[in-house]
């Protein structure tokens, strides 16, 4: 029986960068008890001798020739930006002030 506490969910929400209300944290922790029980069934057959599959195609690295191709102009690339300044994305402060 797996379960997640309200605090576990709060930690995951912080890692996933999603602010959550108290109501959301509590109800998600209840839901996860049920969901984790259901998905934990994979452990019944996942024995050590089974190789994992991450992808349906047996691909390794896929390369293309190192040639410059047409791409978006600066104004196109910035066309959806929430804020811009001097032909660049303007973003909120990233480093804290000391």
């Amino acid at each position: 029986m797996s379960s997640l506490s309200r605090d576990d969910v709060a930690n995951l929400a912080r890692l996933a960068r999603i602010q959550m209300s108290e109501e959301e944290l509590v109800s998600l922790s209840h839901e996860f008890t049920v969901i984790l029980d259901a998905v934990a069934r994979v452990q019944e057959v996942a024995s050590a001798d089974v190789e994992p599959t991450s992808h349906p195609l047996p691909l390794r690295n896929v390369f293309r020739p190192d040639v410059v191709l047409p791409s978006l102009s600066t104004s196109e690339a910035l066309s959806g930006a929430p804020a811009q300044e001097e032909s660049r994305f303007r973003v909120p402060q990233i480093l804290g002030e000391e």
Partner: protein
Amino acid sequence: MIRDSASQMAKALAAGDITSVALTQVHLDRITSVDTDVHAFLFVDTQGALAQAAAVDAKRAAGEKLSPLAGVPLALKDVMTQKNVPTTAGSKILEGWRPPYDSTVVTNLRANDIVILGKTNMDEFAMGSSTENSAYGPTHNPWDLTRIPGGSGGGSSAALAAFEAPLAIGTDTGGSIRQPAAVTGTVGVKPTYGAVSRFGLIAFSSSLDQAGPCARNVLDAALLHEAIAGYDARDSTSINAPVPQVVNAAKSGDVKGMKIGVVKELNGDGYQSGVRIRFEESLELLAKAGAEIVEVSAPNFEYALAAYYLIAPSECSSNLARFDAMRYGLRVGDGEGASAESVMNLTRKAGFGREVKRRIILGTYALSSGYYDAYYGSAQKVRTLITQDFDKAFQKCDVMVSPTCPTTAFKIGEKSNDPIAMYLNDIATIPVNMAGIGGMSLPAGLAPEDGLPVGFQIMAPAMADQRMYLVGAALEEALLTKWGAPLLSKIPELRGK
């Protein structure tokens, strides 16, 4: 005219009986009339569609050689980017975004002169089986407006069933093309993984996502399949091999001597009686058409759902990290002294819906240190076992079949507070995505107990997509003879405006 198949419309266009502008206009009129009730569309590109139609008409008038579907209108799932046309993936976080580029699917549609009417509704980021998770409100099933049209591509399937478009594009991560097709009495195909480029498809679960054709009959789906499929250097998982000849297969429908494997585990308990009745009847018709029906077993399919609900959330928790409020989309909480982290936290709180948050958190947990092996790692092993089940079964048969879904369309709201009950809809469609093979759903009739459409699923080995079209065409032909008219002729008339 709007009730014709895409092939019939293409024929009328080629014969000069109608122009693409006129054909596009009748569909735009139909959308205006019925979409208030159905809500299949999030955006109708009236000007763009008419301009594209006029361009096709001009090419035809100039005697240019055109592709088979040139001038026929189509509805595009809102998960595909289309340059300068609003693209939301059903989410508030992308409200108002106009992508600066076309997806490869759109590039291919344009190259085939297929007219794009607009963008269709979907569960947010394609997470759902009912279209109720759209941030813009649910789509209603044209068979019964109180019921769901399937999901995530419920807008595309409803647009077909409501005669708002003869063709549509869907994407299928765990059944999002096939389940909506099943519950609306339409045809939906998930091609082999890698057959259709994912460039410009807003990613949910990259190792499972695959775009494909939606239509009202098997031949129309095949024509659209060949129009959108093919190698694309901009998608590193695109298959560099010739596209299977699915149009020829759909025209032939010859199943004599083919072995059709009925999956023992995808039938019986939990499947509605009317679904089973229609499924058995379809098997009899295929046997009469000359196919040999055999039983195959896939013992690990019962773990597919559990594995899917670890793999897809894990991949989505990574893919959706791109919605960080920095380069495009919604930004909340910006201002003097606000940090990037608090802006991200507030934007993602406001921009993502409940199901998306649920899956991101689940995926973050499944990938976290200490739990990775037990959850994501184990799910990857189940993926291997499912693929092996398919490989073994395909040694005994050419295609595998099952009902597409356990039930017919349920009521809007019926399962929205029970994630596990909702997830069970996809029990028969998920194995196909796990193995990266092809799957088709086509109408098998109406369930006697509720008069709602039932879907018949056909699964074929990777890069043998033509086999689904052979069997689909054979079954469609046999059912048409039995019914005397296509299933959609029985759909109740929408009152409209």
